[in-house]
């Protein structure tokens, strides 16, 4: 699992202060290499989402810089906490949206959207409207939409937080499989220790308000290759270490 060298993105002393003086993120420096799967772990309201929105370019930092290695700022996919689908459009048209906004012809966009719906195991639901889909299926549509442009960087903001645990486990496994096949770079915001250990190679633990990076832990690929990783002792050990780091960050 050799990772291509060369940084995709470097954050240098990034802070975000809201107009009323609330500091959401403080002095975050971070290097993201291509192919990384990175989790931002922290309690609710620790500024992880704000950090993600700054990477997406949806809001600017109050201080500090974001340096893109190559111009990858245009090759971003984003998965929100809610599925955020257009209720008036079918699953297929929802997935095709980013392509159509970029001017890809209707038929071609539809063809590629169909492929991606199949890859998130939603073949046969092309013509279904969001309200006819379950929460997990809507999230799959949302993931297909984020990946349909083959982005270099996939940003996810607690995408599975609202789902039941069984659905979340399946989506975690499917997301990991997609990542192993596609090798996009992923930044995944979560408040679940278990989820972060299961998914990410690099886990950045954040402090509450203002969000700062308190610790970085790694789950090496060879550990993840353990059979039945989620029930293994290796997994449990990583979870314990991450929990301790989180406890430390909360106390700081």
């Amino acid at each position, binding site marked *: 699992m050799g990772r291509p060298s060369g940084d995709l993105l470097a954050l240098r002393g990034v802070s975000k202060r809201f107009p009323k003086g609330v500091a959401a993120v403080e002095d975050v420096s971070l290097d993201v290499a291509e192919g990384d799967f990175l989790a931002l772990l922290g309690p609710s309201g620790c500024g992880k989402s704000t950090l993600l*929105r700054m990477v*997406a*370019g*949806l809001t600017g930092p109050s201080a500090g810089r974001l340096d893109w290695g190559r111009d990858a700022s*245009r090759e*971003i996919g*984003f998965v*929100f906490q*809610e599925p*955020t689908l*257009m*209720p*008036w*459009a079918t699953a297929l048209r929802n997935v095709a*949206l*980013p392509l*159509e*906004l*970029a001017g890809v012809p209707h038929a071609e966009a539809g063809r590629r959207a169909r492929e991606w719906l199949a890859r998130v195991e939603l073949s046969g639901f092309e013509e279904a*409207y*969001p*309200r006819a889909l379950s929460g997990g299926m809507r999230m799959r549509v949302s993931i297909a939409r984020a990946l349909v442009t083959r982005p270099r960087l996939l940003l996810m903001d607690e995408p599975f937080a609202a789902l039941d645990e069984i659905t979340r486990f399946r989506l975690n496994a499917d997301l990991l499989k997609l990542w192993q096949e596609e090798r996009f770079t992923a930044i995944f915001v979560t408040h679940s220790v278990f989820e972060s250990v299961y998914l990410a190679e690099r886990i950045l633990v954040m402090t509450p308000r203002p969000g700062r990076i308190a610790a970085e832990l790694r789950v090496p690929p060879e550990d993840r290759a353990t059979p039945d990783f989620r029930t293994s002792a290796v997994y449990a050990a990583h979870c314990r270490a991450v929990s301790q780091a989180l406890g430390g960050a909360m106390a700081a």
Partner: protein
Amino acid sequence: MSLALRVLAPLVVGLLVLGGWEWGVRHYAVPPYILPGPMLIVRTLGQDWGTLAPSLLVTMRITFLALLVAATLGLLLAILFAQSRVIEMSLFPYAVVLQVTPIVAIAPLIIVWADDLTLALLICAWIVAFFPILSNTAQGLNSVDPNLRDLFRLYRASRWQVLWRLQLPSALPYFLAGLRISGGLSLIGAIVAEFVAGTGGASSGLASRILEAGYQLQIPRMFAALVLVSGFGILIFGALTLLSHLLLRRWHQP
């Protein structure tokens, strides 16, 4: 509640009221120029159909035209408002002024100013009808899901793409709700304007039939015209409700 009950319950109430009315009129021998019974009204409707039907057509035409113009202009103005806060802030108060001024008070002026009576009636009905469409649609255009808006920004959607693919579909339920209100209002506007114009004897819509029947103490005919007005109003509301149901059923949030 089952559909049968929803249809049957009001039907039973209606029949009871009509039956009681007919019985009361006969039992107390109320003269028809004070209060005609339902049977007499229905008979009159049949007898006077020849004069009432053309008037109904005149009123329908004004109402539909007013609704069409109100929907088009209301929608276009709302889109204009959504493009810039400055435009919205500078024009919206005047839309409110038009809305709160009683139409009866300005109808005589409009009738004097406009050369053509149909045009005058149309303007009156439009003034009454357009505000709900404007304000509802403007609100709809601004109540887009903020995450979807971010998504469109992330993919660098043009202003036109945001309007066409995001704002207009988001505003559709609001627009349709406004349209349902305006349907009834455009009929009211048309009738009120006809009343004002009708005192000069120039109009030929249902309101002038009602006035005329009043002068001649043809109370059953007055009621017959009234039945037509209400029936038409109910029809408009029903048709617009159906339209809204058909357009929204697939994506209406459960």
